[in-house]
């Protein structure tokens, strides 16, 4: 076991400190060290997106980031998507559209959708499908997920920016 390193970062707007061995992935530390179990392990090699987080504004697979790499950086996880007012429109639309069945891939998709809207607030169906191609779902066939994301884009477009 190599020595643990002290890491300081911002997670969901809060300053956190944690210890991590260099070989521990960000996913592992989030789940086992920080009790942020919303990000899931599906494959641990970047092929399913269940572990998605947003690192300094970029959507990444937390299984392919070392925990020690986030020193001084800023992270958003699924736990940080809902605001103080309540569920984020993306989350609300997922519920309304039944865009989840077992729900295991859902945090990854919601984080991915959030990252999509940060870059492209009005995507087409093809653009949504392309963006979500790195997230696997086995229950839904993607139909309702894509509908929920498109509907969320509409809904967000109507809300004043300050309120999200």
């Amino acid at each position, binding site marked *: *076991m190599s020595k643990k390193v002290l890491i300081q970062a911002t997670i969901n707007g809060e300053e956190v400190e944690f210890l991590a*061995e260099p*070989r521990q992935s960000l996913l*592992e530390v989030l*789940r*086992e060290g920080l*009790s*942020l*179990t*919303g*990000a*899931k*392990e*599906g*494959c*641990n*090699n970047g*092929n*399913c997106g*269940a572990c998605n987080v947003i690192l300094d504004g970029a959507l990444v697979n937390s299984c392919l980031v070392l925990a020690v790499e986030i020193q001084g950086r800023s992270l958003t*996880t*699924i*736990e940080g*998507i*809902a605001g103080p007012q309540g*569920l984020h429109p993306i*989350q609300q639309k*997922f*519920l*309304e*559209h*039944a865009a*989840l*069945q*077992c*729900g*295991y*891939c*859902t*945090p990854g998709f*919601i984080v991915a959708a959030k990252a999509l809207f940060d870059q492209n607030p009005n995507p087409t169906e093809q653009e*949504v*499908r*392309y963006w*979500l*191609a*790195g*997230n*696997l*779902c*086995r*229950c*839904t*066939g*993607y*139909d*309702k*997920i*894509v*509908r929920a994301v498109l509907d969320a884009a509409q809904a967000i477009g109507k809300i004043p920016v300050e309120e999200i």
Partner: protein
Amino acid sequence: MTANLRVEQTSAEEQKPAYRVIGTTPIRHDGTDKVTGRALYGADIRLPGMLYGAVLRSPHAHARIKSIDTSQAEALPGVRAVVTSADLPDLESKIAELGEGSINQRYQSCNILARDKVLYFGHPVAAVAAADPHLAEEALALIQVDYDVLPPVLDVNQAMQADAPILLEDLYTDELGKKSEHPSNIASHSQTRLGDIEKGFAEAAVIVEREFTTSMVHQGYIEPQNATALYNQDGQLTIWCSTQGAFGVRDQVASILQIPISKIRVVPMEIGGGFGGKIGIYLEPIAALLSRRSGHRPVKMSMKRSDVFAATGPTSGSTIRVKMGADQQGRITAAQAVLAYEAGAYPGSFVGAGMGVIFAPYRIEHVRTDGYDVVVNKPRTAAYRAPGGTNAAFACEVVIDELCEKLGIDPIEFRLLNGVRQGDRRADGVVYDRIGCLETLQAAREHPHYRAPLEGPFRGRGVASGYWGNYGGMSSASASINPDGTISLVEGSVDIGGTRTSLAMQLAEGLGVPAEAVRPVVADTDQVGYTEGTYGSRTTFATGLAVYELSQILKNKLVEHAARLWEVEPDQVNFAEGIFTCADKQMTLQDFAPQLPEPVVASAAVHATKWGASFATHIVDVEVDPETGKVTILRYTACQDVGKAVYPNYVEGQIQGGVAQGVGWGLNEEYLYDEKGRLVNASWLDYRMPVSLDLPMIDTVLVEVPNPGHPYGVRGVGEVPIVPPPAALANAIYRAVGVRMNVLPMSPGRIVAAIQSRAVHVPEKD
């Protein structure tokens, strides 16, 4: 484009009921937890003093274990326990029922931790518990196993040869009821017959005979198997796991560890997909042993994705030969099939179900099916959504398509002509009750998709039908009225896709209250009565029956209390839509609940037998790139008899999900083994499941032919959607590029090879 339709098919005699809750789409009760990441799945659990377990697996597909030396692993600082099969009791051969499928319990024990032989790449050999998962991995590398490597058997046909290496020295063929003389890899040969097929074929104007091969595929749930066990000093064992059935886990653990059920509590966590693959257990007994050995500490285990592929329960690859004959008018006169399914390392494939499904949508007077259950050096197969059905339907529906072409009959008209109806009897003895086979075919025929023009080169449209029997079985539930008029519902059916809400909705309907007034909870094995797992498309139906009973019991008790309050006879009190009335008196359940003189509770248990079977007809348009063999799905419509859609957008979701799995099965998913029997594509990079870019929107038509065996007409919906897609795709590909594929998956390389090896002729457009 039409998206999702609902078509009610109640007959004139059946009342068209007006439901208040059934058929609506409330937000699911666990929804907020699931979209915020708060819901706790098996691997999310953390307990004080918890250790992490890891499994050492065989690098060989077939070998004898000569010795295992765990001493170095045990000496590694931070390692608290190491176990092998020596720590499991030696079990006698005895069949244990899993619900979907069954297994010889001694074989199951050997599957958990190999005893004298390893029978597949990835077969567990030993396990460790350590302070962190990385240490556990390091400890595995220190375990020395000495193997005597044996030649692997990787193919059904090879395994059936007389001179094939034998996997299990104590396995004899059950040859139509008689035991074979010598050990064999053929675990069983069974047969069903109806009429006289020689006669039937003699009456045929056209006969088609084809052979098909399908590959082993995996359910592909995104969440790997997991189990956490705490084996306490007092002998009480608690297991937290993601499973399709907590009681099934309890039974299997009791059997494998030879401890009484009364010592075991299984707490089902949320589950990230199952599809049949999380009924049988893999980790639970290992975690229990490690917990006990480590000084009674909780031990958490979660499988690596590569281990999920290599060593859980994929479904059978198969070889199927089908011969069908029809007369000039298109009536099927005879049908014959020989099916050989890979069981994997131990017997028990779903070849029997395949035999039942293969001609199920058609009334045929002369039928014969032969089925072979064959062991090979691959992981022991498990149920995968309508287990055995997709393989069988692929073979049958492609042959039917060819018959239609030869006879010049439209594929749906042909199926309508031959379609089964109530009272028809199948070769395996099933007699159909009220079913929707013809109705789904009609819905497909009437659908705009079927009549839409499909223009452009290398484009084609395919049709296929499918059947699944579904299941009933045992469920328990209990409920109580809360002082605020809400109702707590406790049930034992694990919620994989929204059933806690579809059950809450049935309770709500029975009491005339909104779905939100019911608080459903999925309980553990100590908190609710025996309940079979969430499989077999049984939950909304069978647990729903128990829930319906609860509603009636509660209603009666509440009415009695109201009658007492109003000092009248119970039959003078009316309770409807959540309101009690008697003459000019009235109160809501919310008004009354805080005044109840005692707790009002109910419990119910059912053994449901009158489940309804499902039929489906799918239409798919494809475009094929003839130079690369790449298939693009342009449009997909799935028509299915759903009985009564309690929670319609979740019923749509079940259909869409099953279609997507069937598409993967049909186009790209397969297990690839090298000549040494090692699985080479044990990751999602090379085990190619559909991604969002690979599919269009999937349209569904919910045809509602109510099941008379349920008060709301509920019929299982979850499994049949996976049955038709590979065949529908094959038929579409034929019309697109003129090649009839007979191998799954129909991957691009295979399609190009098929195109190149024949004279290409694009058939006349229908």
